[in-house]
């Protein structure tokens, strides 16, 4: 704990001191950027990053810390880092969830209740980017770090120190993002389209810096997974003997490595426009605002597969365990992950059908986007084929896996309405889109995350979770989630725009319903957190392989 506190204090002191000192000589934004950069390094040193490098230089073994203290310092053990990612994801999930609650209170009635337009925009933006970060790191960073090395029979990741670095970049980035609440906020959602993002308060700069930091963290993680999975597999584990979860992490890792630098460069261009006075996105100086949208979505569409491929992996890994039979169409499922990686790079402009892009481009991008439904369909084939004639054990992880299938079915099919150019002309930037991506990300990735947490909980903690509480969590969440988000499709088609703080009175009853029934989701998450904490502290000890799974991580 001391390490974490030391890190946080160093971050605060160093960044503020440098920023205020430099502000005398430099423009405000440049001073703030450099302050953050120095603060980031101070944080890394504070949590013990320097010590790790000294050990490396002197070729010494890292000192072993046991007990709960090890979770609060810079360590290279992949299991510890996995837990750090899991807990951090949960913290950000709760924070961004609180933002969702604030939004729902504001939208319970027509008219402005208690937020100003600017605060609403910032709260909505923090909810968005916060949940994006959760979806990006929860499964790969958490479950991937913990399980992948064990599943392929290696001692640790290929680059353990890089692994720790990629995790410890996140806390300062999250703090920076939250501090935008008191530095003017940001009013561009999570997409930061210029010219809007190039002008305005310091809060926008903080968003851009935080986004770039998360990008770096993500790239470090992605490189590490690709290297580990391609180089460090146990003897005899050929590609087509890898567990399907490992396949999914490899696929997601490849997307991260290839795509993230593109969005990072787009955000750097915004940073340069703001801080250095370049004019990449200033049309009056020959800049081009659509360029940003292309670069942004060239990453941000594949990014949804960074979120959802590991979710597919978790689900297809778990179904065979709880259906007591091997995965159906394993080879085809693995190949479909590869197909998704390839296709994900040629669909980005489906976000630009109404943007003013050349119309003739819309058709090919519609075709490629709809083609992704073929490999995605394979995941369903694989799942249904595994369930068929199985002996299903409806434990909590299995329930979440089944819930995933239902939600993602809705999310995937409604995606067709957005991919189809004629209907997208109407649906783009409405709540139909909001409902669609909550079904894929929350109903999909987050459900899969919960499934994986319950499944690996005995392995991670050595304790069993409470099955009854787990089932209560599942049913509350499944019903609450669907009751909350299904009406949003209707709101969207009726004319409810995205990212607005108010709505016409004829939509009021549905909005109130959503605000009320959304509380079920809050309750479900509370039950989950209670179960996790209680079971970890005083749950009964778990047998070494409670689910009789066949993958390597359960070997004693």
């Amino acid at each position, binding site marked *: 704990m001391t390490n974490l506190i030391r890190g946080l204090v160093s971050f605060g002191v160093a960044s503020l001191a440098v920023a205020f000192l430099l502000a005398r000589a430099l423009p405000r934004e440049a001073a703030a950027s450099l302050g953050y950069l120095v603060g980031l390094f101070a944080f890394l040193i504070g949590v013990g990053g320097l010590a790790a490098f000294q050990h490396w230089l002197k070729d010494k073994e890292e000192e072993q810390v046991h007990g709960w203290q090890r979770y609060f310092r810079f360590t290279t053990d992949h299991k510890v880092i996995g837990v750090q990612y899991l807990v951090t994801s949960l913290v950000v999930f709760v924070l961004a969830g609180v933002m969702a609650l604030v939004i729902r209170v504001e939208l319970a009635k027509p008219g402005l209740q208690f937020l100003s337009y600017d605060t609403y925009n910032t709260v909505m933006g923090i909810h968005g980017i916060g949940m994006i970060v959760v979806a990006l790191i929860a499964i790969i960073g958490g479950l991937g770090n913990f399980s992948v090395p064990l599943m392929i029979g290696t001692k640790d990741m290929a680059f353990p120190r890089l692994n720790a670095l990629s995790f410890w970049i996140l806390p300062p980035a999250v703090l920076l993002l939250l501090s935008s609440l008191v530095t003017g906020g940001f009013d*561009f959602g999570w997409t930061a389209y210029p*010219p809007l993002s190039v002008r305005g308060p310091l809060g926008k700069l903080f968003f851009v810096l935080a986004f770039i930091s998360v990008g770096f963290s993500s790239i470090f993680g992605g490189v590490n997974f690709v290297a580990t999975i391609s180089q460090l597999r146990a003897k005899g584990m050929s590609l087509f003997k890898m567990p399907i979860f490992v396949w999914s992490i490899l696929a997601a890792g490849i997307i991260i490595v290839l795509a993230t630098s593109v969005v990072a460069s787009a955000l750097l261009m915004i940073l340069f426009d703001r801080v250095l006075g370049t004019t990449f996105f200033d049309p009056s100086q020959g800049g081009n605002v659509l360029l940003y949208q292309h670069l942004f979505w060239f990453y941000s569409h594949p990014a949804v597969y960074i979120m959802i491929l590991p979710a597919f992996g978790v689900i297809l890994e778990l179904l065979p365990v709880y259906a007591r039979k091997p995965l159906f169409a394993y080879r085809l499922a693995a190949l479909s992950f590869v197909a998704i990686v390839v296709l994900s790079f040629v669909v980005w402009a489906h976000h630009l059908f*109404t943007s003013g892009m050349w119309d003739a481009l819309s058709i090919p991008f*519609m075709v490629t986007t709809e083609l992704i439904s073929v490999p995605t369909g394979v995941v369903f084939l694989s799942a249904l084929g595994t369930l068929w*004639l199985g002996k299903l054990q409806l434990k909590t992880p299995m329930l979440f896996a089944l819930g995933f299938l239902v939600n993602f079915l809705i999310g995937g099919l409604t995606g067709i309405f957005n991919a*189809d*150019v004629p209907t997208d002309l109407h649906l783009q930037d409405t709540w139909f889109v909001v409902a669609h991506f909550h079904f894929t990300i929350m109903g999909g990735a987050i459900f899969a995350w919960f499934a994986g947490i319950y499944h690996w909980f005995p392995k991670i903690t050595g304790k069993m979770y409470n099955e009854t509480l787990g089932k209560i969590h599942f049913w509350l969440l499944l019903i609450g989630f669907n009751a909350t988000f299904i009406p949003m499709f209707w709101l969207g088609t009726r004319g409810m725009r995205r990212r607005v703080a108010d709505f016409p009175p004829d939509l009021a009853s549905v909005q109130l319903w959503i605000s009320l029934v959304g509380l079920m989701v809050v309750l479900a998450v509370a039950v989950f957190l209670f179960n996790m904490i209680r079971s970890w502290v005083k749950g009964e000890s778990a047998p070494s392989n409670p689910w009789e799974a066949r993958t390597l991580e359960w070997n004693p």
Partner: protein
Amino acid sequence: MEQKTTPVLKGGSDPNGIRGLPPYLIIAGLTVLCSIGLFSVVSHVRMMPEAASYEATWVDQAFDGLLKLTIPIFSLVLMTLLFSVVRFRTRPGRPHEEGVRFDRSRGEFVEVLWIAISLVLTVGLAAFGAKEFRLIRGTDQADVDIQVNSSQWSWEFFYPSYNQYASSLILPEGKRVRLLLTSKDVVHSFWVPEFRVKQDALPGKVVKLLFTPSKTGTYQLLCAELCGTEHTIMTARVNVVDAKAFEATMKEESWEGR
């Protein structure tokens, strides 16, 4: 661990059915029921607002077409899932049993069939989408040109052939209009839900949007691209009037004139 290879999914006396009914018959029946239920729900709740342009009828037709495609697929997958959960679940406390896997050739047959069907559906879907999109965009000819100038956070309209400025959009019924959209500052987006078509307005660029209003009435123009503080209230009134009234209003010297 031993894996049995049992042929499955034979009709007649399939041991996996319920009460003598074979599984595929049960799933088919449930799928039909579920589809009928969902179709009646979506027609009851009226998904779309009133259609007030010719393009809107094309969009609505595309939307209905997609419902006809996705509702049966949704029902089929969901009912197969439900059937499997009900039929193949084990009671807690029973001794562990292993599931039965498909034999190789049957499995591969199902895989190929699944891919073939989804490919055909996807290609058909895209072809329909492309055709409808061409119908919506139509020709480049228009009866009336209107410049739409957006800025944080208001709309302004200029009718070049009448030399008229306006703060609300007035449109002739049944005449094809060409909007020339642009922005003074950040990205905005022109959207009237009743017209369905949506188009961003970009700074430093003029983007065209052509459509034909088909129903007189008052509607609301909404900015659909997040554009800062007052994005929520960046709206304007839209009046569709018959062609005669449109000409008359345009020729009124003092009409909101500047």
